[in-house]
């Protein structure tokens, strides 16, 4: 092996995050006067600082010891994850103050989850990816069971951890098999190995591939590996649910896309149908089961499973076009989903309630929250003016370009199903009779976060060109290797 590039400074955003996490814990420990929500603002500043520092490497393309790659793809996702952490922390400040113990650990774990997510997007190698994935997962296991006197939280956390550990084992076994066949754990080298002779049918290779898909499928909650999602979502403290929905999906797909674009693109024809069927099953099951939910967290959990199906369409249609369309949709989806969850958090802070029927008359009592939640839900359903329409349109068109018109058709049909259950929430808010007429007090911080996210939903929906330019530059990197090898596109 050549001399390794050990340029430690490349990991500066991660140092900041880890250091900040330690600092937050110590502050919590030694500065009794600091309120729990104020501690949150400190932690949020850390996430923002890491985000800003990661901008240093725009248009750079380098790596750390061949393990971590710092390029536009990494920078894109570092910024993305940093901002997810930032908004998730701000949105949870009041919730933590009122309802949780151990604020220091809570914020520190969110920051560490961001580190894990960054690693997943940055890793150029299977084991580094695995370790980062575990860092993210372990942070989330603890966070899900953070309300330690709530048995639902404990149950959700336990389920999440057991199934997560199980899936990690599957993933590791898959990694082992792939290493055995190709002799490398580096994405690019695996890709180069597979580009050559693929005529011989290698059972170990495809078993390894299937196990990796299953393992990643668990992490992003694809059917039939989705069983942990509803319980974990329902049990977790609300801001954690928001975080899990955003960052575990985003990071999971960051890794999914990078791994499949760099390593497994040469075998496209072998796994395309497999992923396509997985995508179809995921969106059908997620959206149909969501119809019957009465608890808003469970509804959003099943709807997020459905959304994973839409995202998997982008993997099934894998091509440079579909890759950028996928990331565009991912960004739009995460912004929208965070906005929806911030509304739910605000409502929970006021009332402590999370049943859909308890949203009755919200439009009278808090018009801004009702309007924002409607915007977010309509965007999730893929309605125009909002992010969902533009990003879904482009993503599904990308699938149609790759001869997956049937899958695009199923996806559109399921978006239509999702509109039905989102409308039931909108109906409660606008048509239901509120228990009281009084307005809720205004939490300015949460309203500010919400307004920013809603503005993002409109921006992506009405003028996606700037974001799409950025995303395309980010994703171009991961397809460049295979393009050089001439393996891109249809056979």
């Amino acid at each position: 092996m050549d001399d390794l590039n050990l340029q430690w400074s490349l990991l500066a955003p991660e140092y900041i995050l880890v250091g900040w996490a330690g600092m937050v814990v110590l502050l919590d420990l030694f500065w009794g006067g600091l309120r729990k929500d104020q501690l949150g603002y400190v932690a949020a500043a850390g996430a923002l600082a890491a985000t800003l520092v990661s901008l240093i490497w725009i248009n750079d393309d380098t790596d750390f010891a061949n393990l971590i790659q710092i390029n536009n793809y990494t920078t894109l996702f570092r910024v993305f994850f940093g901002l997810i952490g930032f908004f998730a922390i701000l949105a949870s400040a009041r919730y933590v103050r009122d309802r949780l113990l151990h604020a220091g650990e809570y914020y520190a774990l969110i920051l560490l989850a961001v580190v894990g997510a960054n690693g997943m997007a940055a890793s150029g190698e299977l084991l580094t990816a695995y370790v980062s994935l575990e860092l993210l997962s372990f942070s989330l296991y603890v966070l899900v069971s953070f309300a330690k006197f709530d048995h639902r939280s404990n149950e959700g956390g336990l389920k999440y951890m057991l199934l997560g550990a199980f899936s990690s084992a599957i993933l590791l076994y898959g990694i082992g098999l792939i290493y055995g066949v190709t002799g490398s754990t580096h994405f690019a080298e695996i890709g180069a190995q597979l580009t050559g002779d693929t005529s011989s049918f290698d059972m170990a290779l495809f078993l390894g591939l299937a196990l990796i898909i299953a393992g990643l499928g668990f992490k992003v909650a694809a059917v039939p590996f989705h069983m942990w999602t509803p319980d974990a979502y329902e049990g977790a403290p609300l801001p954690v649910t928001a975080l899990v929905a955003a960052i575990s999906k985003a990071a999971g797909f960051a890794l999914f896309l990078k791994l499949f674009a760099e390593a497994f693109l040469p075998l496209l024809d072998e796994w395309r149908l497999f992923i396509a069927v997985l995508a179809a099953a995921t969106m059908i099951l997620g959206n149909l089961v969501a119809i019957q939910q009465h608890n808003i967290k469970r509804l959003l959990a099943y709807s997020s499973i459905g959304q994973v199906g839409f995202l998997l369409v982008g993997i099934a249609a894998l091509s440079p076009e579909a890759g950028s369309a996928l990331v565009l949709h991912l960004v739009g989806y995460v912004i929208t989903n965070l906005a929806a969850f911030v509304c739910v958090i605000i409502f929970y802070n006021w009332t402590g309630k999370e049943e859909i029927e308890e949203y009755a008359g919200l439009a009278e009592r808090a018009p801004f929250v009702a309007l924002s939640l409607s915007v977010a839900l309509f965007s999730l359903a893929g309605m125009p003016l909002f992010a969902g329409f533009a990003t879904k349109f482009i993503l599904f068109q990308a699938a149609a370009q790759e001869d997956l018109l049937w899958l695009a058709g199923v996806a559109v049909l399921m978006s239509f199903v999702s509109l039905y259950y989102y409308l039931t929430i909108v109906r409660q808010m606008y048509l239901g009779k509120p228990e009281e007429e009084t307005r809720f007090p205004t939490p300015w911080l949460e309203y500010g976060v919400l307004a920013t996210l809603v503005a993002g939903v409109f921006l992506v929906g009405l003028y996606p060109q700037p974001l799409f330019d950025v995303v395309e530059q980010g994703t171009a990197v991961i397809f460049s290797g295979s393009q050089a090898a001439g393996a891109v596109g249809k056979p």
Partner: protein
Amino acid sequence: MEWVLFALIALPLGTTLVFMLIPSRYSQLVRYTALAAAAAMFLMSLLVFIRYEFEGGSGLRFDLQLDWLENIAFLGENGITLHLAVDGIAAPMVLLTGIVILAGVFISWNIDYRNKDYFILLFALVAGVFGVFVSQDLFFLFFFYEVAVLPMYLLIAVWGASSNFGTFVRTKEYGAMKLVLYLVAGSVLIFIAIFATFTEAGQGTFDLPVLGEATYGETFQKTFFPFYMIGFGILAGLWPFHTWSPDGHVAAPTAVSMLHAGVLMKLGAFGILRVGIGLFPEGAQFWSPVLMTLGVTGALYGAVSALGQKDLKYMVGYSSVSHMGFVMMGLASMNSIGVTGAVLQMFAHGVMTALMFANVGAVYDQTHTRDMTAFGGLANKMPRHTAFWTIAGLSSLGLPGLAGFIAEIHIFVGTFQAGYYWAGALGILAAAITATYILRMLASAYFGPFNERWASLKEMRFREQSASVLLIFFIVFMGMWPKPFIDRISETVNNLPGIG
């Protein structure tokens, strides 16, 4: 002048923002703002119609192209642009929208419950409608199409009215949900067809003129034309996918019924013409017998169903299904006269059905019933209202001199010319049934012995009368002097691909 179409979309959208800034306690200010904006939209749409130069070919007028998304992924130069322009088919539709929204704001004057939110949704809907008519980009056409559909749910569910049939109740939520689910199901088909069209064309753009010049295989056209035909057809009340329409229209508040039956259903027919026939003429030719059959069935079925209604609004709702059936017949004839007739009918039906719903609303506001058997001799108390109703009804049954006649005569001639004698004959039968239910309704509810129960009825309010006069002006104008309409429409229709 290029910006007039942009302004037509931006004005209603901008007005929604203005509404949001007005505190909801100033309901009178909200009303006057709505009126001012609607009047401005009406004048602009009139301007578009008058200044549209039909001579010198069928080209697009007021052409404006703004970049939205390009040189990204599978999109090439001008991949998706906000391309706005009108042709001879869109110009009358824009005018129609301008007329109906102005009348609709007059009719909405007496809405008191959260009227600010009501106008926000109504104007968002109108922005979508204008957008569909003037878009020359498939992406944005569909974008605005969905914008127009979405506000319907809340408009009906919040401000609508449930119908009690004694043994069962049709709630407004039911009507609203049914309408939205039907229409969105139609969009699914359109969505799929758009993906397929873009991929097959391989031009890297959604621009309709460019897509129109691309070549599509014959099998491809035959496969995907039905997607557009049924997808858009659902909104146009195409039989047998029309059942949302009477329920939805009855549940909706008056002005929303006017806009929906008057303008939104036209979006469906317009979509079939602009996208379906415009892109896939061979597919349209292949499927035209089916469209003709469905159209004439709808015309007959709607008329017979209207005959059986006691509820005035259901009668108008079914009559809309019937008249949209005529539009489908005109489109299916695939010849110049027939398609021109279809567009004329879209305009004529739009104006007269808006007038009908406005008048049903006016009488319902006072009597709180729409059961025509409970009325009797209302002409004694509401002479002007009766006159308006009569004119709308006579236009609907195709009396010469009014708008409906001009349109229907074109459609029937076109149908016969295309060789569908049976369909033409059945269509005329449907028109005859229309005469029966309209005249019977007028006889039982408005003329004949006066029912003393209604002794305290008053004439329609001034604003409702203004709206009716506005609508009647265009019914009579088109009936007496259809040339401005026919000139504009036929010039464009003759240049459509596949129109013989």
